[in-house]
C-alpha cells in the first residue's frame, strides 16, 4: 500500500480519515485491513462532501427565500422555527409524504430515471473542487474538462424528462434546454481557456495554487462571459426559458410531483453552489486567503458569488429564446474569442510572466474588456433605447370643460 502514500499526503482530507481507520487497533493488532480502510475512508469522504453540499443547499434555499423576500419588500418564510429556519425541513417532509402521481402515457423508465440523472451533474462537480488546503475528493489532472463534461449531463436528463412526460409543455422546455446548452457551451469553454493558459494546468488544485493574483483581475472579460454562460447553463433567470413558469408552466418537470419534483428542485438549488464553487476556484483564488482558515475563505467566496447569482435572478425579467441564442453567438462568442486571442498574445510576449507582468496583463485586459463591453452593447442595443414618456394630449373634449370654468 506504499504506493498510496503521496496521494494521502497531498489529500489531507482523505489521508487523515484513512490514517484513522488504518490505525484502529487493539494491542497492535489492526482491526481493519489496509485495503478496507482505503475504501471506508473513500466512501466517508464522498458521504461527507455530498451531505455538506446538500445541507448547504438546504440552508441556501432558506437564505434565498428570505433574501428574495427582502428584495421584493416582503418578509419571506418566517413561520417554522426561529426566522423560519425549519422551512426547508417542512418542505422536505411535505415532498416526501406527497403522492407521487404518474400521468397516463409516460415513458416509464425515462420518466423515472430523469430526476436521478438530473441531480448527478451538480453533485459530480464537487468531486474535483478543492474546498480548502489539501481538501478535495479527487485531484483529477483533467479536472476542468471533467466539470465541463458533467455539467452537460443535466441537459440529457432534461430531455429525458421532457420526452418521457409525454407533455407538450415539457417537450418545449426540453427542446429549449438543449438548444440553450449547445449555444452556451461554446462561450463557456472559451472563457475558461484564458484561465487555463495562465494557469498552465487543467487540474483545479493546480489552478488555485498558480493564482498569484486572483484571475478575475487578469481575466475580467473571461469572468463576465463565464458568469453569464454558467447562469444560462443552470437555466437561472434571465435565461430560465427552460422552465419559464409564465410560459411553459414548469417546463420539463411539469408532470413531476412529490420527491421526484423535489429532486429536480434540489438539483437546481445545488447548481448555483456548484457554479459559485467553480467561479471561486477559477477566478477568485479558490480557498486561499489571509488570516482565516482556508475552508472558511472558500465558503465566504462561494456565498458571495451565490448572492450575485441570486440578486440577478430576483431582478431581471426573462429573455426570449431567440434573444438568448443571439446573445450567445453574437455577443459572448466573439468576446470569448477576443479574450482568448489577447491572453494568448500577451503570454506569447511574456512567456513566464512575473507578478508585475501579470498586473500589466490585468491592466490591458481590463481596458480591452471595458472597450469590448461598451462597443458590443452599443452594437446590440440599437433598439434598446427607452422611448420618451408619452406626450399627453388634451383629449377630444366635448367643450363642457371650458364652460364649467
Amino acid at each position, binding site marked *: 500500500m506504499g504506493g498510496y502514500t503521496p496521494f494521502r499526503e497531498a489529500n489531507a482530507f482523505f489521508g487523515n480519515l484513512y490514517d484513522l481507520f488504518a490505525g484502529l487497533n487493539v494491542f497492535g493488532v489492526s482491526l481493519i485491513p489496509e485495503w478496507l480502510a482505503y475504501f471506508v475512508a473513500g466512501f466517508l469522504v464522498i458521504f461527507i462532501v455530498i451531505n455538506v453540499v446538500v445541507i448547504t443547499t438546504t440552508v441556501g434555499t432558506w437564505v434565498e427565500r428570505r433574501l428574495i423576500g427582502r428584495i421584493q419588500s*416582503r418578509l419571506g418564510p418566517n413561520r417554522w422555527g426561529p426566522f423560519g429556519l425549519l422551512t426547508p425541513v417542512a418542505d422536505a417532509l411535505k415532498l416526501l409524504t406527497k403522492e407521487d402521481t404518474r400521468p397516463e402515457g409516460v415513458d416509464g423508465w425515462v420518466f423515472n430515471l430523469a430526476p436521478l440523472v438530473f441531480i448527478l451533474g451538480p453533485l459530480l462537480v464537487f468531486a474535483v473542487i478543492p474546498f480548502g488546503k489539501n481538501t478535495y475528493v479527487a485531484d483529477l489532472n483533467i479536472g476542468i474538462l471533467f466539470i465541463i463534461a458533467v455539467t452537460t449531463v443535466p441537459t440529457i436528463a432534461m430531455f429525458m424528462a421532457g420526452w418521457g412526460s409525454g407533455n407538450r409543455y415539457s417537450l418545449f422546455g426540453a427542446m429549449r434546454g438543449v438548444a440553450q446548452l449547445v449555444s452556451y457551451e461554446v462561450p463557456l469553454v472559451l472563457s475558461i481557456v484564458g484561465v487555463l493558459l495562465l494557469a498552465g494546468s487543467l487540474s483545479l488544485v493546480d489552478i488555485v495554487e498558480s493564482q498569484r493574483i486572483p484571475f478575475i483581475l487578469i481575466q475580467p472579460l473571461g469572468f463576465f462571459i463565464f458568469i453569464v454562460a454558467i447562469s444560462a447553463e443552470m437555466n437561472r433567470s434571465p435565461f430560465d426559458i427552460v422552465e419559464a413558469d409564465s410560459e411553459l408552466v414548469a417546463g420539463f418537470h411539469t408532470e413531476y410531483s412529490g420527491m421526484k419534483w423535489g429532486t429536480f428542485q434540489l438539483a437546481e438549488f445545488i447548481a448555483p453552489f456548484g457554479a459559485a464553487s467553480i467561479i471561486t476556484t477559477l477566478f477568485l483564488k479558490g480557498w486561499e486567503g489571509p488570516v482565516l482558515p482556508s475552508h472558511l475563505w472558500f465558503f465566504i467566496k462561494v456565498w458571495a458569488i451565490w448572492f450575485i447569482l441570486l440578486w440577478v435572478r430576483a431582478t431581471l425579467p426573462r429573455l426570449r429564446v431567440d434573444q438568448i441564442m443571439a446573445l450567445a453567438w453574437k455577443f459572448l462568442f466573439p468576446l470569448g474569442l477576443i479574450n482568448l486571442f489577447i491572453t494568448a498574445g500577451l503570454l506569447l510576449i511574456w512567456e513566464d510572466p512575473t507578478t508585475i507582468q501579470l498586473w500589466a496583463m490585468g491592466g490591458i485586459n481590463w481596458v480591452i474588456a471595458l472597450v469590448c463591453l461598451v462597443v458590443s452593447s452599443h452594437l446590440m442595443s440599437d433598439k434598446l433605447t427607452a422611448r420618451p414618456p408619452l406626450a399627453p394630449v388634451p383629449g377630444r373634449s*366635448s367643450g363642457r370643460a371650458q364652460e364649467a370654468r
Partner: protein
Amino acid sequence: MTLRTEPVTINLGPQHPSTHGVFRMRITFDGEVILDVEPVFGYLHRGSEKLAEERTYAQVVTLTDRLDYVSSMSNNLAYVLAVEKLAGIQPPERAMYLRVIAAELQRISSHLVATGFFLNDLGALATPLMYCFREREKILDLFEMLCGARITLSYMRVGGVFQDAPTEFWPAIRDFLSFMPEYVDEYEKMLTGNEILLSRTKDVGILAGETAINCSASGPVLRSAGVNWDLRKADPYDVYDRLEFDVPVGTVGDNYDRYLLRIAEIRQSLRIIEQCVDQIPEGPVRERIPNLVRPPVGDAYAHVESPKGELGFYLVSDGSIAPYRCKIRSPSLINLTVLRDILIGWKLADMIVTFGSIDINMGEVDR
C-alpha cells in the same frame, strides 16, 4: 434533404399560470412561432346578467363587484350611472366627487396590478409585482376607510354613495397623493429603461389604430394604438368635465406603449384625485330615494372609462323593482378580440407578454 416538420397544437389553459384566470387558447405552433390562435371563453361564466334580472336595482351593485374584481369601483359606477339615467335620479355634488375619487383610485390600483403582472409574464420573478402590490395595498386601505371592504367594495349606491368619507380619510389621501408620484418615478426608473424589458416589448405585438377601432377595442389598448378616445373626455360623466387632465396616447401600439400608457395614466389619475380633493363641496352624499327603485318603462345605456376600457351597462326596465334585462359591455372581452390579429407570427414568449399587456380580467370576460 428537407426535414418534414409538423405544427404542434397546445391548449394553453384553462389551468395555466399566466392566463390571468381560466382563459383557454388553442394555439398552433411551428416550433416556437405561432401559426394560429383560437381563444376559448366561458370557463368562469356565472350568469351575472341573468342573476341581475332576479335582483332589485340596489342588490345588483354587489354583482358588479364580481365582474372585474380588481376594479370594483368602476363597475359599481357604471351600473349606478345606468340606473340613475333610467330612473332620472341626480346624485348630490359631494357624492359625485367621492365617486370620481374612488374610481380614479381604482384605476391606479388596477393599472398597478396590470403593470405588475405584465412584468411577471415577462419572467421577473414577482419582484415588480410585489412593488406594485405594495402601493396597491395603500389604495385598498383607503377603500377600507371608505366602505369597510377591500376588494368587493359595493361602495356606490343608486343616487350617491354608501357613506361619506370618514374624517381620517382626507389626511390619508393627501398623504397618498404626496408619496405616490415618487413611487411611480421608482417604477419608471427601474423598468422603463431596462434593456431586457425593452428588447422583449418594443415593437412586439403592434396593434394598428385601424384594427383597434374595427375590433371595437377601448381603453389603454385603443389609446396605445394612437387613437385619442377617452370617455372621460368624450362623454364626461359625474364631474369629469370640471377637472383638468390629459389623455396619454401611444405612438406605435406595441407592448411597450401599453406599458408606458398605463404609467402615464397613473400620473393623470393622481392629478384628477388631487383636484377632486381640493374641490369637493360639503353636503349630503346620497339622494333620498325609495328603497325599491321602480324606474319608468324604458331603457338606458351608461358607460364609464374603466381601467380596462369602455365598461357599459344597458338596462331595460319594465317598471318593476328588478331590471328586465341587464347587458354588460365588458371591455376585457372586446379587447381580447384583437388578440388573433396581433399574435400570429410571434413567438410563444411574446404571446404571453402581449396577452399580459392587453390586461384582461376573466371575471369580466365571462361574466
